[in-house]
Protein backbone atom coordinates (compact mmCIF):
# COMPACT_ATOMS: atom_id res chain seq x y z
CA UNK A 1 0.00 0.00 0.00
CA UNK A 2 2.62 2.47 1.14
CA UNK A 3 4.98 1.23 -1.58
CA UNK A 4 2.40 1.91 -4.25
CA UNK A 5 1.99 5.55 -3.19
CA UNK A 6 5.73 6.01 -3.01
CA UNK A 7 6.12 4.67 -6.52
CA UNK A 8 3.46 7.09 -7.74
CA UNK A 9 5.25 10.04 -6.17
CA UNK A 10 8.57 8.92 -7.67
CA UNK A 11 6.94 8.57 -11.07
CA UNK A 12 5.46 12.07 -10.81
CA UNK A 13 8.83 13.55 -9.82
CA UNK A 14 10.63 11.73 -12.62
CA UNK A 15 8.18 12.85 -15.31
CA UNK A 16 8.13 16.44 -14.04
CA UNK A 17 11.91 16.60 -14.03
CA UNK A 18 12.40 15.00 -17.41
CA UNK A 19 9.73 17.12 -19.06
CA UNK A 20 10.89 20.48 -17.74
CA UNK A 21 14.70 20.17 -17.62
CA UNK A 22 17.25 19.78 -20.36
CA UNK A 23 18.76 16.71 -18.73
CA UNK A 24 20.78 15.56 -21.71
CA UNK A 25 23.29 18.38 -21.38
CA UNK A 26 26.57 16.51 -21.11
CA UNK A 27 28.76 17.17 -18.07
CA UNK A 28 31.87 16.02 -19.87
CA UNK A 29 31.33 18.58 -22.62
CA UNK A 30 31.73 21.22 -19.90
CA UNK A 31 35.10 19.69 -19.06
CA UNK A 32 36.09 19.78 -22.75
CA UNK A 33 35.21 23.47 -23.12
CA UNK A 34 37.05 24.20 -19.87
CA UNK A 35 40.19 22.57 -21.25
CA UNK A 36 39.81 24.48 -24.53
CA UNK A 37 39.55 27.72 -22.54
CA UNK A 38 42.73 26.94 -20.65
CA UNK A 39 44.45 26.30 -23.99
CA UNK A 40 43.18 29.76 -24.94
CA UNK A 41 44.80 31.32 -21.87
CA UNK A 42 48.00 29.47 -22.76
CA UNK A 43 47.86 30.99 -26.25
CA UNK A 44 47.49 34.45 -24.68
CA UNK A 45 50.42 33.70 -22.40
CA UNK A 46 52.72 32.62 -25.24
CA UNK A 47 51.59 35.50 -27.47
CA UNK A 48 52.29 38.19 -24.90
CA UNK A 49 54.84 36.28 -22.86
CA UNK A 50 52.99 37.30 -19.70
CA UNK A 51 49.97 36.23 -17.67
CA UNK A 52 49.29 39.78 -16.51
CA UNK A 53 47.62 42.22 -18.85
CA UNK A 54 49.46 45.53 -19.13
CA UNK A 55 48.82 48.84 -20.81
CA UNK A 56 51.66 48.11 -23.19
CA UNK A 57 50.12 44.84 -24.34
CA UNK A 58 46.86 46.63 -25.12
CA UNK A 59 48.76 49.23 -27.15
CA UNK A 60 50.56 46.49 -29.06
CA UNK A 61 47.15 45.17 -30.14
CA UNK A 62 46.40 48.55 -31.66
CA UNK A 63 49.72 48.66 -33.50
CA UNK A 64 49.90 45.13 -34.78
CA UNK A 65 46.84 44.06 -36.66
CA UNK A 66 48.10 40.50 -37.22
CA UNK A 67 48.24 39.98 -33.45
CA UNK A 68 44.61 40.87 -33.18
CA UNK A 69 43.65 38.84 -36.20
CA UNK A 70 45.41 35.69 -34.98
CA UNK A 71 43.97 35.97 -31.50
CA UNK A 72 40.47 36.44 -32.92
CA UNK A 73 40.87 33.31 -35.02
CA UNK A 74 42.07 31.30 -32.02
CA UNK A 75 39.17 32.37 -29.81
CA UNK A 76 36.50 32.01 -32.47
CA UNK A 77 37.79 28.46 -33.04
CA UNK A 78 37.67 27.72 -29.30
CA UNK A 79 34.11 29.03 -29.12
CA UNK A 80 32.93 27.01 -32.13
CA UNK A 81 34.65 23.83 -30.92
CA UNK A 82 32.99 24.19 -27.49
CA UNK A 83 29.56 24.54 -29.07
CA UNK A 84 30.14 21.59 -31.40
CA UNK A 85 31.42 19.36 -28.58
CA UNK A 86 28.52 20.31 -26.31
CA UNK A 87 26.07 19.45 -29.07
CA UNK A 88 27.65 16.14 -30.08
CA UNK A 89 28.23 14.91 -26.53
CA UNK A 90 24.71 15.85 -25.43
CA UNK A 91 23.36 14.14 -28.52
CA UNK A 92 25.22 10.94 -27.66
CA UNK A 93 24.02 11.10 -24.07
CA UNK A 94 20.42 11.60 -25.17
CA UNK A 95 20.70 8.62 -27.51
CA UNK A 96 21.91 6.43 -24.66
CA UNK A 97 19.06 7.42 -22.35
CA UNK A 98 16.58 7.27 -25.25
CA UNK A 99 15.65 10.90 -24.69
CA UNK A 100 15.38 13.39 -27.48
CA UNK A 101 17.81 16.28 -27.69
CA UNK A 102 15.17 18.28 -29.56
CA UNK A 103 12.46 18.54 -26.92
CA UNK A 104 10.84 21.69 -25.59
CA UNK A 105 13.22 22.05 -22.64
CA UNK A 106 16.34 21.77 -24.79
CA UNK A 107 14.87 24.28 -27.23
CA UNK A 108 14.11 26.69 -24.39
CA UNK A 109 17.61 26.15 -23.03
CA UNK A 110 19.25 26.82 -26.40
CA UNK A 111 17.09 29.88 -27.09
CA UNK A 112 17.82 31.47 -23.72
CA UNK A 113 21.52 30.77 -24.11
CA UNK A 114 21.68 31.99 -27.70
CA UNK A 115 20.14 35.44 -27.21
CA UNK A 116 22.71 36.79 -24.69
CA UNK A 117 25.53 35.14 -26.68
CA UNK A 118 24.32 36.86 -29.85
CA UNK A 119 24.25 40.19 -28.00
CA UNK A 120 27.79 39.45 -26.80
CA UNK A 121 29.00 38.97 -30.38
CA UNK A 122 27.81 42.46 -31.32
CA UNK A 123 29.30 44.00 -28.19
CA UNK A 124 32.68 42.35 -28.83
CA UNK A 125 32.74 43.45 -32.48
CA UNK A 126 32.03 46.99 -31.35
CA UNK A 127 34.74 46.82 -28.67
CA UNK A 128 37.28 45.66 -31.26
CA UNK A 129 36.24 48.39 -33.72
CA UNK A 130 36.63 51.02 -31.01
CA UNK A 131 39.90 49.48 -29.83
CA UNK A 132 38.57 49.06 -26.31
CA UNK A 133 40.42 45.78 -25.99
CA UNK A 134 40.61 45.67 -22.20
CA UNK A 135 36.83 45.30 -21.98
CA UNK A 136 36.64 42.22 -24.21
CA UNK A 137 37.52 39.75 -21.45
CA UNK A 138 35.07 41.20 -18.90
CA UNK A 139 32.37 41.35 -21.60
CA UNK A 140 32.76 37.70 -22.61
CA UNK A 141 32.65 36.57 -18.96
CA UNK A 142 29.67 38.76 -18.05
CA UNK A 143 27.62 37.80 -21.10
CA UNK A 144 28.46 34.10 -20.66
CA UNK A 145 27.42 34.35 -17.01
CA UNK A 146 24.13 36.05 -17.91
CA UNK A 147 23.49 33.54 -20.70
CA UNK A 148 23.93 30.65 -18.27
CA UNK A 149 21.68 32.33 -15.72
CA UNK A 150 18.94 32.77 -18.28
CA UNK A 151 19.26 29.26 -19.76
CA UNK A 152 20.05 27.49 -16.49
CA UNK A 153 16.42 27.62 -15.40
CA UNK A 154 15.75 24.96 -18.03
CA UNK A 155 18.60 22.71 -16.99
CA UNK A 156 20.43 21.61 -13.85
CA UNK A 157 21.02 24.02 -10.92
CA UNK A 158 24.80 23.62 -11.42
CA UNK A 159 24.46 25.73 -14.58
CA UNK A 160 23.10 28.61 -12.49
CA UNK A 161 26.04 28.35 -10.09
CA UNK A 162 28.47 28.39 -13.02
CA UNK A 163 26.64 31.45 -14.36
CA UNK A 164 27.05 33.32 -11.08
CA UNK A 165 30.74 32.34 -10.94
CA UNK A 166 31.42 33.64 -14.45
CA UNK A 167 29.47 36.83 -13.81
CA UNK A 168 31.56 37.52 -10.70
CA UNK A 169 34.83 36.76 -12.55
CA UNK A 170 33.71 39.16 -15.28
CA UNK A 171 32.92 41.96 -12.87
CA UNK A 172 36.22 41.44 -11.04
CA UNK A 173 38.15 41.51 -14.31
CA UNK A 174 36.76 44.99 -15.04
CA UNK A 175 38.25 46.36 -11.85
CA UNK A 176 41.43 44.28 -11.79
CA UNK A 177 42.29 44.43 -15.47
CA UNK A 178 45.84 43.14 -14.98
CA UNK A 179 44.39 39.82 -13.77
CA UNK A 180 42.05 39.49 -16.77
CA UNK A 181 43.72 36.44 -18.30
CA UNK A 182 43.75 34.60 -14.99
CA UNK A 183 40.11 35.48 -14.26
CA UNK A 184 39.17 34.39 -17.77
CA UNK A 185 40.95 31.11 -17.15
CA UNK A 186 39.13 30.69 -13.84
CA UNK A 187 35.67 31.47 -15.28
CA UNK A 188 35.75 29.72 -18.64
CA UNK A 189 38.38 27.16 -17.67
CA UNK A 190 38.42 26.00 -14.06
CA UNK A 191 34.78 26.73 -13.16
CA UNK A 192 33.59 25.04 -16.36
CA UNK A 193 35.69 21.97 -15.62
CA UNK A 194 34.53 21.77 -11.99
CA UNK A 195 30.87 22.18 -12.97
CA UNK A 196 31.27 19.58 -15.71
CA UNK A 197 32.86 17.07 -13.36
CA UNK A 198 30.25 17.56 -10.66
CA UNK A 199 27.43 17.19 -13.21
CA UNK A 200 29.08 14.11 -14.63
CA UNK A 201 29.39 12.48 -11.20
CA UNK A 202 25.89 13.47 -10.11
CA UNK A 203 23.89 12.70 -13.24
CA UNK A 204 25.82 11.15 -16.12
CA UNK A 205 27.62 8.30 -14.43
CA UNK A 206 24.36 6.70 -13.30
CA UNK A 207 23.18 6.50 -16.89
CA UNK A 208 25.84 3.98 -17.84
Amino acid at each position, binding site marked *: *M*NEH*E*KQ*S*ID*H*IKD*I*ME*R*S*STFISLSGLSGVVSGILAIIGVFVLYTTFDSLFLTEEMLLSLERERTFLKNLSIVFITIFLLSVIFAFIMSYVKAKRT*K*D*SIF*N*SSSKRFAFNLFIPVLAAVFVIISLIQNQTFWLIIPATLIFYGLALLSAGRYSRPEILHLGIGCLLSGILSMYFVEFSFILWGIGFGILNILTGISMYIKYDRKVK
Partner: protein
Amino acid sequence: MKDIISQINKIFENKVRLGIMSALMVNEKIDFKELKSLLDITDGNLSSNASVLEKEKYIKIKKKFVGKKTSTIYSATDAGKIAFKEHLSALEKIIRNIQ
Protein backbone atom coordinates in the same frame (compact mmCIF):
# COMPACT_ATOMS: atom_id res chain seq x y z
CA MET B 1 -7.27 7.22 7.31
CA LYS B 2 -10.41 6.17 5.46
CA ASP B 3 -11.06 9.83 4.83
CA ILE B 4 -7.67 10.27 3.15
CA ILE B 5 -8.11 7.25 0.95
CA SER B 6 -11.36 8.66 -0.33
CA GLN B 7 -9.34 11.70 -1.51
CA ILE B 8 -7.31 9.48 -3.82
CA ASN B 9 -8.46 10.23 -7.32
CA LYS B 10 -9.30 7.03 -9.20
CA ILE B 11 -8.61 8.70 -12.52
CA PHE B 12 -4.97 9.23 -11.55
CA GLU B 13 -4.49 5.68 -10.31
CA ASN B 14 -3.39 4.75 -13.83
CA LYS B 15 0.34 5.25 -14.42
CA VAL B 16 -0.02 6.73 -17.91
CA ARG B 17 -2.67 9.24 -16.82
CA LEU B 18 -0.54 10.15 -13.82
CA GLY B 19 2.38 10.72 -16.19
CA ILE B 20 0.37 12.89 -18.59
CA MET B 21 -0.86 15.08 -15.73
CA SER B 22 2.62 15.35 -14.18
CA ALA B 23 4.09 16.55 -17.47
CA LEU B 24 1.25 19.05 -17.97
CA MET B 25 1.68 20.45 -14.47
CA VAL B 26 5.16 21.75 -15.35
CA ASN B 27 4.62 22.50 -19.06
CA GLU B 28 1.93 24.81 -20.35
CA LYS B 29 1.47 22.61 -23.42
CA ILE B 30 3.07 19.51 -24.90
CA ASP B 31 2.54 17.91 -28.28
CA PHE B 32 1.68 14.28 -28.93
CA LYS B 33 5.11 13.25 -30.16
CA GLU B 34 7.00 14.64 -27.22
CA LEU B 35 4.55 13.30 -24.65
CA LYS B 36 4.74 9.89 -26.25
CA SER B 37 8.52 9.75 -26.12
CA LEU B 38 8.56 11.18 -22.59
CA LEU B 39 6.25 8.47 -21.26
CA ASP B 40 7.66 5.80 -23.58
CA ILE B 41 4.24 4.39 -24.56
CA THR B 42 2.37 3.53 -27.75
CA ASP B 43 0.16 5.92 -29.74
CA GLY B 44 -3.02 4.07 -28.76
CA ASN B 45 -2.18 3.99 -25.08
CA LEU B 46 -1.56 7.73 -25.04
CA SER B 47 -4.69 8.65 -27.02
CA SER B 48 -7.04 6.49 -24.97
CA ASN B 49 -5.73 7.70 -21.63
CA ALA B 50 -5.68 11.30 -22.79
CA SER B 51 -9.32 11.06 -23.82
CA VAL B 52 -10.23 9.74 -20.37
CA LEU B 53 -8.62 12.85 -18.88
CA GLU B 54 -10.38 15.04 -21.45
CA LYS B 55 -13.78 13.55 -20.55
CA GLU B 56 -13.15 14.49 -16.93
CA LYS B 57 -12.29 18.00 -18.18
CA TYR B 58 -8.84 17.69 -16.61
CA ILE B 59 -7.03 18.40 -19.89
CA LYS B 60 -7.70 20.12 -23.20
CA ILE B 61 -6.83 18.48 -26.49
CA LYS B 62 -6.30 20.69 -29.53
CA LYS B 63 -5.62 19.48 -33.03
CA LYS B 64 -3.70 21.72 -35.37
CA PHE B 65 -2.69 21.32 -38.98
CA VAL B 66 1.00 21.67 -39.61
CA GLY B 67 1.22 21.47 -43.39
CA LYS B 68 -0.58 18.26 -44.25
CA LYS B 69 0.02 16.58 -40.91
CA THR B 70 -2.07 17.05 -37.81
CA SER B 71 -0.39 17.87 -34.56
CA THR B 72 -2.15 17.25 -31.26
CA ILE B 73 -1.45 19.60 -28.39
CA TYR B 74 -2.29 18.84 -24.78
CA SER B 75 -2.69 21.26 -21.89
CA ALA B 76 -4.06 20.97 -18.36
CA THR B 77 -7.22 22.81 -17.31
CA ASP B 78 -7.50 24.64 -13.99
CA ALA B 79 -9.84 21.92 -12.75
CA GLY B 80 -7.26 19.32 -13.72
CA LYS B 81 -4.49 21.11 -11.89
CA ILE B 82 -6.57 21.40 -8.72
CA ALA B 83 -7.60 17.73 -8.89
CA PHE B 84 -4.00 16.68 -9.41
CA LYS B 85 -2.76 18.75 -6.45
CA GLU B 86 -5.42 17.19 -4.22
CA HIS B 87 -4.41 13.74 -5.39
CA LEU B 88 -0.76 14.52 -4.72
CA SER B 89 -1.41 15.76 -1.19
CA ALA B 90 -3.53 12.66 -0.48
CA LEU B 91 -0.61 10.48 -1.59
CA GLU B 92 1.75 12.39 0.68
CA LYS B 93 -0.62 12.10 3.64
CA ILE B 94 -0.87 8.33 3.21
CA ILE B 95 2.90 7.95 3.10
CA ARG B 96 3.37 10.13 6.18
CA ASN B 97 0.64 8.36 8.16
CA ILE B 98 2.10 4.93 7.63
CA GLN B 99 5.65 5.96 8.40
